[in-house]
């Protein structure tokens, strides 16, 4: 299938920037299967054969409708708050709120030069300059400017509090946020109402600056609902006047949350993207229509409908063409069903979730001994697990050999090349048994903990039991429905089996592999096995402060190599993903990042 890309092709800047954090290569070549042929053509330059009628033209989008099956119902226009940071909202808002960049399928920011530009103008101190293009406005005519960027900072930096304290003595934040990373490192930004440029100075070097999007919600609406003018709003931030901001914050936190079917007044939800939300039938559908005041290039299709539908019902609905695009969790039955359909394109791929085994390396655990970890790693049948459990859902699935890079990312091969991952590629029962005997631990009991019920993980434990049993391990299935929040936090396991949801940016992995402040619940971060290595700690310290992409890539490779040396965890596989769509729909591209499949909905077109 051929696809068209908008002019916001990943630019050199974006590609280079992407390297910083994930040390992954540039996205122009060797993209994953999901992204298909990447022809670098403008939207209007349509290379498909005979579908000229419905092509976007200067007059606007084609008068057609494309229907996407969304599993969960939309809930809030503001997906930046702690309780609304979920795909149910972001999938819709992809077409409604635009910013400096978006998550491309490879996990990196794809710059949106139609919106504005951003660049690292100084490394010491770290300064990033954001410039919004002049014609860029909210759909109500209000220019998108510096006030909006100030709002994003105020809402996400966590500097303002209500003055109240919770039971643990922490002050309650004034604005609800899903995460303060990055923003909390900003020196307080300052600008005047109407400025289109903002210089952001980082007080602490923040290597993931690329993953910061300083335009999110409309500040003029937040100010107005808080009883302020935009100028007063800016002034309140300048003066750190939390009281003055209280009403505005209250609106920001919950004013955009809607009950099903009760769409807020359109004036409260101005759009910065190609679509606006025009209709919501509770429990049924949400309709996005072309934003007539859109400052950018018109989308391919006038109307996008989100049809709220349980995953189990999506395949038949697609077969009956009640929906055009689905992206359910794959399972073998579903794939068979999809394969049997006429006129449906099915694409399988991988996702940004990976399954892994974590050793308990806290003091007193037998797995403090590296030889025993190696013995165990040598008997875990990683290929067999994939053949039996994953290949039926993704025929191209391979064993995952990295913890910081996903196997479908461009730089994966390079990252793995410098490690000793190859030593563990095949099961070696003899070697495993020999190591076990050397340590005098034959018949050692290994309790594998995971969140039950989960049939797939039960099967994984079974496969490990068969294989490692031969080497002399005694595997105990310790699946428990209190695993998360219980055994995992208490470090009450020998080996933990679960998955991480990640992204292209590796900064989030720091707390997984750096030495915890204490090996106790609530203090060990994500380092559940209490792994500790000065080498890795040091490398992470450098990585988090490294602004040069090539150097960062090198650091990631070093961390990965050291992790293979130390073996605190064993990566198993990435979760499979599947998308399916009617073959008369063009422009559908799988995207397993936070962006989701709707990331490029403005390119969806019906032939």
């Amino acid at each position, binding site marked *: 299938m051929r696809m068209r890309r908008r002019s916001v092709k990943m630019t050199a800047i974006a590609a280079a920037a992407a390297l910083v954090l994930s040390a992954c290569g540039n996205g122009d070549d060797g993209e994953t299967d999901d992204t298909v042929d990447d022809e670098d053509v403008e939207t209007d330059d349509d290379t498909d054969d005979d579908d000229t009628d419905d092509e976007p033209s200067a007059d606007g989008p084609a008068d057609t*409708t494309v229907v996407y099956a969304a599993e969960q119902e939309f809930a809030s226009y503001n997906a930046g708050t702690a309780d609304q940071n979920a795909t149910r909202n972001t999938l819709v808002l992809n077409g409604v709120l635009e910013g400096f960049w978006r998550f491309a399928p490879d996990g990196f920011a794809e710059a949106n030069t139609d919106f504005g530009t951003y660049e690292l103008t100084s490394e010491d101190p770290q300064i990033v300059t954001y410039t919004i293009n002049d014609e860029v406005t909210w759909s109500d005519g209000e220019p998108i400017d510096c006030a909006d960027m100030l709002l994003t900072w105020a809402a996400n930096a966590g500097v303002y509090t209500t003055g109240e304290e919770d039971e643990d003595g922490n002050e309650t934040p004034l604005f609800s946020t899903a995460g303060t990373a990055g923003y909390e490192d900003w020196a307080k930004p300052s600008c005047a109402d109407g400025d289109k440029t903002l210089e952001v100075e980082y007080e602490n070097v923040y290597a993931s600056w690329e993953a910061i999007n300083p335009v999110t919600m409309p500040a003029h609406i937040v100010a107005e609902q808080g009883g302020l003018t935009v100028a007063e709003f800016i002034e309140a931030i300048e003066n750190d006047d939390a009281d003055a901001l209280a009403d505005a914050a209250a609106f920001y936190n919950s004013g955009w949350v809607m009950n099903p079917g009760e769409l807020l007044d359109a004036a409260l939800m101005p759009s910065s993207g190609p679509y606006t939300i025009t*209709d919501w039938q509770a429990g*049924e559908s949400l309709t996005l229509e072309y934003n007539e005041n859109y400052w950018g290039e018109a989308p391919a299709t006038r109307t996008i409908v989100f*049809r709220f539908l349980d995953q189990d019902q999506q395949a038949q609905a697609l077969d*009956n063409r009640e929906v055009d695009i689905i992206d359910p969790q794959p399972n073998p039955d579903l794939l068979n069903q999809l394969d049997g359909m006429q006129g449906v394109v099915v694409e399988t791929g991988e996702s940004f979730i990976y399954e892994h085994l974590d050793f308990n390396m806290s003091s007193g655990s037998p797995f403090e001994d590296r030889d025993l970890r190696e013995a165990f790693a040598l008997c875990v049948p990683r290929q067999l697990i994939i053949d039996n459990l994953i290949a039926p859902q993704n025929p191209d699935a391979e064993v995952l050999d990295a913890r910081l890079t996903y196997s479908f990312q461009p730089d994966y091969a390079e990252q793995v090349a410098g490690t000793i991952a190859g030593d563990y590629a095949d099961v070696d029962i003899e070697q495993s048994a020999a190591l076990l005997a050397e340590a005098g631990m034959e018949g050692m009991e290994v309790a594998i903990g995971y969140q039950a019920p989960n049939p797939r993980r039960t099967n994984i434990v079974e496969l490990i039991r068969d294989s490692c049993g031969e080497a002399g391990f005694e595997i105990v299935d310790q699946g428990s*429905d209190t695993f998360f929040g219980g055994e995992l936090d208490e470090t009450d396991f020998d080996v933990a089996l679960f998955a991480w949801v990640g992204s292209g940016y590796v900064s*989030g992995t720091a707390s997984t592999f750096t030495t915890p402040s204490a090996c106790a619940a609530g203090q060990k971060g994500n380092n559940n096995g209490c792994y500790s290595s000065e080498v890795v700690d040091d490398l992470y310290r450098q990585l988090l402060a490294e602004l040069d992409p090539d150097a960062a890539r090198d650091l990631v490779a070093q961390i990965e190599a050291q992790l293979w040396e130390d073996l605190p965890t064993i990566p198993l596989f990435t979760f499979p993903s599947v998308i399916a769509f009617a073959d008369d729909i063009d422009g559908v591209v799988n995207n397993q990042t936070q962006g989701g499949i709707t990331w490029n909905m403005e390119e969806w077109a019906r032939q």
Partner: protein
Amino acid sequence: MAVFILRRFIISTFTLLAASFVVYFGVSISGDPFEDLRGIQDEGDAQIQIAARRELLQLDVPVPLRWFNWLTGIFRGDFGLNIRNQDVSALLSNAAAATMQMVIVATVLAIVLGVTVGIVSALRQYSGFDYSLTFAAFLFYSLPVFWVAVMLKQYAAIEFNNWLRDPTISPTVTVVVALLAAVAWQALIGGDRQRRLVVSITSFASTAAVLVFFSTTRWFADPGFGTIVVGVMSVISAVVATYLTAGFRHRPPLQAAGATAVAGVGFYLVGGPILAEPSAWTLLGLFVLGIGAALGIGAGLGGIHRRQAMSASALTAVLVSGVIFMDQLLQAYERFFGLVRGRPISTVGSATPGFTGNFWEVGLDSISHLMLPTVALLLISFAVYTRYTRASMLEVMNQDYIRTARAKGLTERTVVMRHGFRNALIPVTTLMAFDFGAVIGGAVITEQVFGWQGMGTLFIRGLNEVDPNPVMAFFVVAGGSIVVFNMIADIAYAYLDPRIRLS
């Protein structure tokens, strides 16, 4: 009576209170409300979101206290917030509306069809028809509804829509369907061998003819009745209505029904402009007007059989209105067919998103969405109603007063309709009340399969997310309606059956 109601009310209240605590407690400890946040690898993000959810759901308050808070909220009409910070009261009203929309039609149809078929089945006890129906009823009753629903979606929607691209009927199918029709009709009508043979041949031939007609004219691609069919069906309506209400012994009722049918067709011929773009109210007004006119005709032509004539023509008016309604719907089909891109029968939801059109087109859209869930629900309730009605009717027909009625020389029609049918309905009425109470609780599985976000979805989603408030909203409505309707059933029974005294 008042004492009885009061006593029932008090007992029910305490039952509900106790049950609400059990359910609330059960849901609250049923899992980890943060499970979906545990996998977030960025530790800061995860902690912020977990803290926000703890605050929202008041997870640091002990469960019994949370239940108490919930309970006091209920008395203020506040159902609380769900895990997404949405108002559960609003969710509940949406869910209840969706569920009602789906189950009411199915329940009403199940009652009408189930009772009718049950009566006929009782009157033809131990006939081929009775045996076939008994078999079918048990078959339907034992079918798992999710399976029926998925099969309906596959064959009645997807495959049917595929077939509509070229709607021709193969000779084999024609013969098989005609044969089935022949067997069914002769069993239904009964009689001696010769009569059965005639009925079989007639129904075989007419069914085959109709199917061949449909096939060659590609009727399904653009279905419609036309004036002739409307006329013929109106006449048949008049005859059937007369038979059911008055019988043919006297002329006036038949004449009145006939006149009503003629008037109906007359309106159909001249009323086109009114019918083209009506509102629901216009139609309702016309319907009431039609019934009124029919009653007038009955009164005028009835003579000494005024009452029977009036019921006969009123029933005729209802049936003819139905025929005209169907005809108008089918006239809108062509445009509707284009709007849904040639796939009229849908598998999910209650309407095509963004569909606009006149009353008939929107009506077609609703019907095409409601059809399959209605059939799925219908099959099962239908079986229950048939069995109950049959048993009740058989019991009544063996009563002494029926023998007395026959001995008085009443016609069989009067015996069955006036003396048998009415009394047979008493136990069925109470069944309806029970059934309705249960149905409000949601057709959980049917909703799921047909993608309706009704009461069942509210319940299941709440349970999966360890979010007690939506589950409790479901509980209040479902539990409450079961209690209320049980009480109504008891009272109705006492009211309908003079032998029973409450208290």
